[in-house]
């Protein structure tokens, strides 16, 4: 889901890093002062279906005050419509503060995210083969106008998520469309002029119970319920897009006071929200002010100055050139949070057919140099990756493909190339985003590393997001490439949101064009296993794919850095989404 976060860097600056940023080695220089930071790591999703409101108080929390959140280089959501929210920014803010959904995450004592009920009274009840899920909607949740949130409204909200024309950026285009019964044919309440959603019978309401039917087994429905798209929407014209997106009706502890797209979002207390109805959220601060599109350098100055402005402020990122200062000065107010993202290089599986060449590429990639040139802090914002599944995923295994972490090793790469019997130098064609000087710099490093390892690189400069090239099979640049890349973040901590999107035959983001029938079958099969076995099965599959095929080169796991002002209480990150833990923040009085 966090894929659009990189977009943040104005004008796609970060996109490039997508293509280029890798991660992998650097056990040597990569440590240092960075390694002794407390990691906002996570061990994989746990669930607590019994959790009831009100949420336990945060120790020492006091009410009142205003928290200002700076989002450097992040344009923020275009629309506040919950159904359209798939960006880290929009989802993390709104799901935590204004827009409730079926389920939600809470942060436990160890900093791990725990899936707990939200509008539903528990985490839902699936049938035998996960093709039908029933959620009971609680009766005491209310809208900001005081009216109760009804099961019909939740069902309508779910129905809205099927309208991929009205909400092209909504996560429903991926999950609702794919899993819900009859969703493929139904175009949604707006596009098919069915404002009451009468023509889709995938969801049914019975008293406070709503039942969703699936077309294929969907064991992760409870996770999917934590998206604000799986929440209620007022019936009829009241929630018609695009107008609803500027002033959505809140049902969380805060409501929208004012919203200027790309500039500012002000949230104030919603006095209709009652703590008893919500097992996960708090309402400590009087208001939140989100400032989008901020200048990174300027925000860094503010946050490091510790003046009256910055004491109650939070910044969602830190310029890498400020890491040293910040690390020394801020202590625990600088929070490092794994963002459940992996950067990869994807050799074209149909062209680079020899696993030795793909491994040679992995050894030829100068991980640390790429990070430095790209403005990352090795070992801090980028850490070496061993597989596709980022740390924190349920079932993630700590294996190494070749017994130890793959690092930059041109000699080994050459040896592998020789073993494969391929002609040397082996030609590699890739693209880089020219508009961003950092992307150009990282490409230079990649080129140097590859050419020192027996490859010959042709790097084609492009003026738009490399994804536009990689995803278009008819693009004439794309046809020349044999090395692409993709940067992927999980939508929830289960392997099903990492492996199939990247490595299933025919998946849109499968830029490696990897397509092995046995792997495809295994992916389908895991979805039908008992819930408790699935995590381990994904972990095993991850290891199997990497050791047997090595179709994708994970170059780095990504970490986010958050900066908290000295008067912001409980400075923590939200392990489920790569954002500050808005739910539990307060202002120290």
């Amino acid at each position: 889901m966090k894929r659009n976060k990189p977009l943040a860097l104005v004008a796609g600056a970060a996109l490039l890093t997508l293509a280029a940023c890798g991660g992998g080695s650097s056990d040597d220089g990569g440590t240092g002062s960075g390694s002794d930071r407390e990691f906002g790591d996570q061990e994989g999703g746990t669930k607590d279906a019994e959790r009831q409101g009100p949420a336990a108080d945060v120790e020492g929390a006091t009410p009142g005050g205003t928290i200002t959140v700076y989002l450097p280089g992040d344009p923020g959501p275009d629309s506040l419509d919950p159904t359209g929210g798939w960006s880290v920014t929009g989802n993390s803010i709104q799901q935590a503060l204004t827009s409730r959904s079926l389920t939600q995450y809470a942060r436990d004592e160890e900093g791990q995210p725990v899936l707990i009920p939200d509008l539903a009274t528990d985490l839902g009840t699936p049938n035998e083969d996960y093709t039908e899920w029933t959620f009971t909607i609680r009766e005491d949740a209310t809208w900001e106008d005081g009216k109760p949130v009804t099961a019909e409204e939740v069902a309508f909200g779910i129905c809205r998520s099927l309208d991929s024309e009205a909400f092209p950026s909504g996560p429903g285009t991926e999950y609702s469309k794919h899993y819900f019964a009859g969703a493929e044919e139904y175009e949604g309440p707006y596009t098919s002029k069915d404002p009451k959603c009468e023509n889709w019978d995938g969801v049914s309401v019975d008293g406070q119970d709503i039942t969703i039917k699936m077309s294929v087994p969907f064991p992760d429905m409870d996770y999917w319920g934590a998206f604000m798209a799986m929440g209620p929407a007022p019936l009829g014209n009241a929630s018609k897009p695009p107008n609803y997106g500027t002033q959505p009706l809140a049902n969380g502890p805060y409501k929208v006071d004012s919203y200027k797209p790309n500039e500012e979002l002000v949230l104030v207390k919603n006095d209709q929200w009652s703590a008893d109805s919500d097992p996960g959220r708090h309402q400590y601060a009087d208001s939140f002010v989100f400032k989008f599109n901020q200048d990174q350098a300027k925000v860094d100055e503010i946050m490091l100055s510790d003046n009256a402005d910055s004491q109650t402020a939070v910044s969602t990122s830190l310029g890498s050139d400020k890491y040293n200062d910040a690390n020394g000065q801020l202590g625990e107010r600088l929070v490092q949070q794994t963002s459940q993202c992996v950067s990869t290089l994807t050799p074209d599986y149909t062209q680079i057919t020899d696993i030795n060449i793909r491994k040679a590429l992995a050894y030829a990639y100068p991980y640390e140099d790429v990070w430095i040139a790209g403005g990352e802090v090795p070992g801090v914002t980028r850490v070496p990756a061993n597989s596709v599944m980022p740390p924190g995923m349920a079932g993630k295994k700590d294996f190494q493909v070749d017994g130890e972490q793959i690092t930059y090793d041109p000699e080994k790469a050459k040896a592998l190339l020789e073993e494969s019997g391929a002609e040397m130098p082996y030609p590699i064609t890739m693209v880089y985003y020219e508009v961003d000087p950092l992307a150009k710099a990282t490409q230079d490093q990649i080129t140097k590393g590859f050419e020192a390892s027996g490859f010959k690189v042709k790097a084609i400069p492009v003026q738009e997001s490399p994804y536009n090239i990689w995803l278009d099979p008819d693009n004439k640049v794309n046809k020349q490439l044999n090395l692409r890349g993709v940067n992927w973040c999980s939508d929830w901590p289960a392997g099903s949101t990492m492996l199939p999107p990247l490595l299933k035959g025919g998946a849109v983001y499968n830029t490696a064009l990897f397509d092995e029938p046995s792997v495809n079958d295994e992916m389908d099969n895991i979805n039908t296993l008992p819930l408790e076995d699935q995590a381990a099965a994904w972990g095993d599959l991850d290891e199997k794919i990497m050791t047997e095929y090595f179709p994708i080169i994970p170059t780095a796991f990504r970490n986010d850095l958050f900066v908290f002002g000295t008067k912001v209480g409980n400075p923590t990150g939200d392990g489920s989404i790569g954002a500050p833990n808005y739910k539990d923040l307060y202002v120290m009085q």
Partner: protein
Amino acid sequence: MSAETAGPETLGSLSSEPEQQDPNSQKAKEISGKSPLRIALGRLSRDKIAVVCAIVVLFFIICAVFAGTISKLFGVSLETGLASQYVDGLNNGLPKPTMGPPNGPFTWEHPMGVAPRTGEDNLAYWLHGCRISLMIATVATVVASIVGVIVGLLAGFLGGTVDKVLSFFIDMFLTIPFLLAALTLAPILNDRFALSDNYATIQKFSLICVLAMFGWMGTARLIRGEVLALREREFVQAARVMGMPTSRVLFKELLPNLAAPIIISVSLMLPSFVALEAGLAFLGIGVTDGVSWGQTILKAATPTYFREYPQYLWQPLLGIVALVLSLNLLGDAVRDALDPKTRR
């Protein structure tokens, strides 16, 4: 009159407004029997500022022409190894102490230090940046002058409808916001040729086209005005009466008399193109392969690097300022020397 401006946002003026001269402040000597250009040269050589500026410009030209040789003399080159050999990723990507300032003592291996994050040698990049800057500015000036002279000649000499149409285009191009146009055009041109093997050359070429496309109007106006005056002079009238073909009149009779205005417009254009090239790179457009003063400035002008490694910013910045300044002052002196008012 219309849209010529001297405002700073147009980046060094492309204006052809010669400075108002004070007829009394300079005592012009009576010189006879020399061509106007000879007279002007003589005056220039006695102008101390002009001579100093000429030397500075010459220095830059030498740097540009012999960029490769000079780099070799110092043992530096554009070729750089992997970044981690040069810079410290945990210290904001600043150069390691062995690479010279700011963290270590001066070293002859990298006389001007290395760039943060990538470890590129600053001297080599400075020299080659100088080459790019001068090359682009010079070629663009030549192209823009040729276009301007031709348009000006035609408009001024043919008059009538041709004049009206050409003047309209001059006005139109003056109305188009240059920066916006360049910003829009450059990436589109670049994208067109992204697959080409000599992409770097094409990129420079398209930059030259963009610069020339919006730089010719001043010359065209100046020439047009001169031609309008010359057209009525006896020798031109005589040539026409004798039935000389128009092209001959244009190039044999008129052009030689336009040397002064052409030199003036070149002297205005050259420094403004040097400034523009770097300015566009600073905005992220134009040359993108890193060998450009403007791009280095863009990378260096961040608060952290400016505080901890100001040399990195100052090197290209001083290059541009010194070059543009001396070209401008030299151009001023040339215009003074050519000014008929001071020749009286």
